[in-house]
């Protein structure tokens, strides 16, 4: 088999032009959804990175599954079986309650496991999220009639279906497909919350001791952040799924932190990173005819790789300049000492 046959032909018209012209009513929603998801995940994820708990995103995105399953199960017993898709608002609130509950339980369980015993934090995270995720899978398959959740959809999401979701109308004005509108609200609140609580978030990340002494209760900030992380993750589920959400939480912030020296720049760069990876990802997906969300994350990871390579090359260049400034005798001493160790 010829290797070249595996790569689809590159048709400029259908890959690069159509999504912005004839297909725009449909592809526009996908782009918007991708961008909003990436910005919300990127901003929340940046707070995780600053606290050195990127793995908590991994944990919560998985352990939300049993939360959702339980919430849907309880809702179906309380309000009866869902008959049509017009209960968008009810579904959303059920999802949010389940997600926040699961997020907090995960956080508290992890904290309890590693505080009360010899289990280290990374092991505690691994145990808790794997267990909860497994319980979620069991619940979904056991109560498939009552729980309107598809395991495939939860894992991988399908951003391509977003334009065909029922449109949400407020006061007679059509706003957009339900998932996009919900994500827009969540993204807006994420940005607002970060700006409003900027001081508290930054100081409790940088110096929890000082924060506590100033009367900012760091554990509360942590719990609120984890709750908010759950909200963002559950809103992103439908489009990108549990696995790609992890990438969207970490990659934009990690890329920006290689470039930016201060937080305001960093948060701005996350928005830029989201925009580029969304657009490039969509074109990539149209060309290769593959998962759109997957392609968006791949594009984001390419940006990270470029930033990382540039960072490493620049640092190596700086070090060459530095060693050129050092007198030859001490430089040779340094090289012998490093050779010895």
């Amino acid at each position, binding site marked *: 088999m010829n290797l070249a046959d595996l790569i689809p032909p590159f048709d400029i018209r259908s890959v690069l032009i159509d999504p912005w012209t004839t297909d725009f009513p449909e592809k526009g929603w996908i782009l918007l959804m991708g961008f909003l998801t990436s910005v919300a995940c990127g901003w929340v994820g940046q707070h995780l990175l*600053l606290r*050195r708990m990127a793995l908590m995103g991994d944990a919560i995105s998985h352990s939300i599954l049993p939360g959702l399953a339980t919430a849907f199960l309880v809702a179906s017993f309380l309000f009866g079986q869902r008959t049509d898709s017009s209960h968008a608002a009810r579904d959303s609130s059920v999802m949010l309650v389940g997600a926040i509950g699961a997020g907090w339980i995960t956080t508290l369980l992890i904290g309890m496991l590693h505080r009360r015993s010899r289990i280290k934090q990374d092991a505690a995270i691994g145990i808790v999220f794997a267990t909860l995720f497994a319980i979620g899978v069991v619940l979904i398959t056991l109560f498939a009639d009552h729980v309107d959740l598809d395991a495939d959809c939860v894992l991988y999401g399908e951003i391509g279906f977003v334009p065909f979701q029922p449109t949400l109308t407020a006061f007679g004005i059509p706003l957009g497909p339900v998932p996009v509108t919900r994500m827009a609200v969540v993204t807006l609140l994420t940005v607002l919350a970060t700006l*409003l*609580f*900027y*001081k*508290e978030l*930054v*100081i409790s*990340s*940088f*110096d*929890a*001791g*000082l924060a*506590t*002494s*100033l*009367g*900012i209760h760091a554990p509360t900030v942590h719990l609120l952040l984890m709750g908010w992380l759950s909200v963002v993750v559950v809103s992103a589920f439908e489009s990108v799924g549990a696995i790609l959400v992890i990438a969207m939480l970490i990659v934009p912030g990690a890329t920006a*932190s290689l470039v*930016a*020296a*201060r*937080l305001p720049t*960093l948060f701005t760069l996350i928005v830029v990173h989201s925009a580029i990876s969304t657009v490039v990802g969509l074109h990539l997906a149209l060309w290769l005819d593959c998962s759109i969300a997957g392609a968006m994350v791949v594009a984001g990871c390419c940006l990270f790789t470029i930033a990382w390579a540039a960072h490493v090359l620049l640092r190596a260049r700086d070090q060459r300049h530095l060693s050129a400034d050092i007198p030859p005798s001490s430089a040779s001493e340094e090289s012998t000492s490093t050779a010895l160790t």
Partner: protein
Amino acid sequence: MTAPPPTPPTATPETPPPLEIHDLTVAYHRRPVLWGVDLAVPAGKLVGIIGPNGAGKSTLIKACMGVTPIAGGWVRIFGAPLSRAHRRVGYVPQRESVDWDFPVSVMDVVLMGRYGKIGLFRRPSRADRDIARACLDKVGMLPYANRQIANLSGGQQQRVFLARALAQESDLYFMDEPFAGVDAATEAAIVTLLHELRDRGCTILVVHHDLPTARNYFDMLLLLNLRRVAFGPTDEVFTYELLQKTYGGRLTILSEVADAVRQHGGSIP
């Protein structure tokens, strides 16, 4: 740079002491690290906390600041619990307790000292920035205001922490090993600054590791080893007998102690 403003030199019974600790007990994993500590620090004193490793020096400060939960006893700051007094308290944690790769500038860190006074939802005002700049100038770090903190030396990092504490404009300060790993020039600068703060009427508690310098730096000493061994004016407490009681049988330190006491004309039994 002289003429300290007049401040009430002694605490009368009506004005509560800046720091009052009663029967304070702290335990980690059921092992006590501080046991039944009583302390009342008078106003306007520079107090050194000394004792061997693991004696609970840092824990005492952290318990006072609410960072470490206490198992028993209580802490009063100006007669009130910390939750009602945190605006009057400044804190300098150990330098290693924070991530110096954090994406903030020197100025950002010093502004954090103002956060307690700024209030929720507000941004630092021009006045806050002016105060932060003045504090940076005081520790000789103003030229570095816009640097990222990752590019600082150990001494510079400590100066930034100190500038942040100054920006808190507190009446009572807790400092956890501000002299650890700093250069001689920074150490001298910090000592001058501490004396200046003290002369302004501030009360400062400093965890200190180096015995020979302890005698020159502090007005009062707290000798600590799980329990309070002694607390009082430096001249009365810095004796071979009490230090031996504090450090137990650690010979290397004891010979150091002997040297330090001898240098200052003390007698060794």
